[in-house]
């Protein structure tokens, strides 16, 4: 078990012939992930690292039973690619593309909800389940085992880079990860932390979760309410970055586009207070994640 991806994941990469996507395909195959097909219009018949390329997702789905798609299509074409995945009934769509117009995101997120598709991202670095050697996206690069070893801790991160760093901290603490999810740095995303937490609650492999939070949005507050309502009952260790932003003039944005503070909305200190109040383990310093984890896993 794990969440989102496991040995039953049958994967297609949309935009597979791009520079970044080809490299990621190579790394994923080397890791042991099965990638069935790729889609790039006009390039049917080619292959990337031995993975066949199709013009349409429809044709790829005819050849293979696909349930998962990774979207690497440039921003101007990402909307249509995601709609193509929704239209072909792909259950899980992980969107790596950054800088997709908000209106496009809102449209495909609404379409996905109507069709019961799960979207992770946009602006995600990927999802990884080390036990089954499945990784989607650049997550872990060419040396996933450096940070991501199999174990019982789930990771939810608003930062792609810090997904790896959180997994590495868990490894330093002497544990491993069930699934790590980079949910994306945008405001409008398919799977906010609360949704992922609900999946971890139902996953017997996951015994605890580490969450990386940032200024802006109400995601961490939603998580606190969810924990309070017993939606998530396992230990949750949270770290909220960007406390200095509270001291800057209002409206200033550092880091991801979503990390904007307005009034009390989005303040790290407020998020930390909510999470503490709900009984979560809030790490004051990032280093504190290690002892906190050793404590709850003991």
């Amino acid at each position, binding site marked *: 078990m794990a969440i989102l991806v496991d040995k039953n994941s049958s994967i297609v990469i949309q935009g597979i012939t791009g520079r970044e996507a080809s490299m990621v395909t190579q790394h994923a195959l080397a890791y042991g992930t099965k990638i069935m097909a790729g889609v790039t219009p006009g390039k049917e018949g080619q292959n990337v690292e031995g993975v066949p390329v199709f013009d349409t997702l429809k044709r790829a789905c005819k050849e293979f039973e696909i349930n998962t798609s990774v979207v690497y299509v440039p921003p101007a074409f990402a909307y249509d690619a995601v709609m193509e995945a929704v239209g072909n009934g792909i259950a899980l769509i992980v969107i790596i593309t950054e800088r997709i117009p908000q209106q496009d995101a809102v449209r495909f997120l609404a379409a996905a909800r109507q069709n019961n598709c799960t979207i992770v991202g946009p602006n995600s670095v990927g999802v990884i389940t080390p036990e089954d050697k499945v990784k989607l996206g650049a997550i872990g690069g060419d040396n996933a085992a450096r940070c991501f070893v199999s174990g019982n801790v789930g990771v939810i991160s608003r930062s792609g880079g810090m997904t790896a760093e959180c997994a590495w901290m868990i490894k330093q603490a002497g544990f491993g990860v069930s699934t790590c999810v980079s949910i994306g740095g945008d405001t409008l995303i398919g799977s906010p932390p609360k949704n992922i937490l609900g999946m971890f609650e139902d996953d017997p492999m996951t015994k605890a979760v580490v969450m990386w939070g940032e200024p802006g949005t109400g995601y961490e507050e939603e998580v606190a309410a969810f924990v309070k309502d017993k939606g998530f009952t396992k230990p949750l260790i949270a770290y909220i970055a960007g406390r200095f932003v509270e001291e800057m*003039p209002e409206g200033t944005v550092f880091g991801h586009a979503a990390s904007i503070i307005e009034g009390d909305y989005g303040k790290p200190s407020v998020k930390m207070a909510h999470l503490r109040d709900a009984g979560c383990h809030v790490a004051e310093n990032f280093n504190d994640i290690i002892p906190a984890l050793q404590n709850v896993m003991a």
Partner: protein
Amino acid sequence: MARVLENFGKDLLKENGVPTPEFSVAATPQEARRAAEKIGYPVVLKALVTAGKRGKAGAVRFASSPDAAAKAAEEILTMTVHNFPVRRLLVEKKLDISQELYVSITYDPVQMGPVIIASTAGGIDIEEIAAAHPEKMLKYPVDILKGFNLYEAKEIWSDLGLQGGILQKATNILGRLYQLFIKYDCTILEINPLALTPKAGLIAAAILMGVDDDALYRQTYFSEKVEAGSDRAWRPLTDLEKEMIEVDKTEAYRGTARYTEMEGGNIGFFCGGGGGSLLSYDALLRFGGKPANYTEFGGNPPEAKVKGLVKGVLSKPGVKGFYMNLNITNNTQTDIVARGIIGAFKDLNIDPEKFPAVLRLAGVHDAEARRLCTAAGLEYHGDDITMEDTARIIVEKMKKAFPGETD
């Protein structure tokens, strides 16, 4: 988001059938006087800046005579509103207002869709409306796939108590505002107040409009009119910040970086990732460090871009140390980052012996990064220590090298 100046926003309203007061843009008191003469008194003069809350800053004045208009213009043109120097102002017909409505459209991160907020208690900030008149305010989520029908606009205003001619006018305007929001890839569109005037009916007296940076490629109307990311700063961009944007534009699809100058400080800050940079800055402050700037970068930048960025970071007056902290990379090639940094130090003739520097560069190709940094005399760390530990090290180094400069 890119903020749209009020004159451009009002041009768009007019083009899309939403009435606005007659207005003109002026850059000198003489121009303001002429504009006022043409428009007719009384007039209102407003600073034309992207900062909000101009009224509270004293940058909105009224005038009933040519001399008063010129004097008000002169005063406004010497002002700096929330750090933005005023270069031009809007001269506008002062409205005779009998009621003020409020309407805004944004994307809501809980609904993950457009949300309309309407109120019959306009003219004050939405926070104040929510606190003082919650019963006069309505929040309405729109199903973006179905679109926004005129009957929905009618229901919103009717539920808020509007009737008769004003109900019909408000319905039409709200329908048009939603279309405009979609058509121009807005991230916010706020009309406050939407003013009811005895003579001219409903008029959009003030507009706040933001356009999605990521949609500017297809919103050519705004080219040369807005500055991408202008909502991210609390003041206009500095010269160095503008230069760094140009550096970032080279090989635009390989690596992205954003540079912000901070007040004072002595540590040049070049840290990695939207998240990792937040952690690094927090940690520096906690240990008593004084960062002079804030640069976040990611996405596997080429060597030349790294070099250009680091040179910018180091060139800010007062920078006497360098801190580069990066999370263990997924795809960023650390050897290339190292080469860029070393190149910048060389170009600027900085002797690493006399210039405290700490680098944490773990991930893709980090054996090579370690070799390069060590050979260049730069203190290198990989995944042997945590990101917070490196912050402590650079701050200790700075305190040792420049006692009395910290705290």
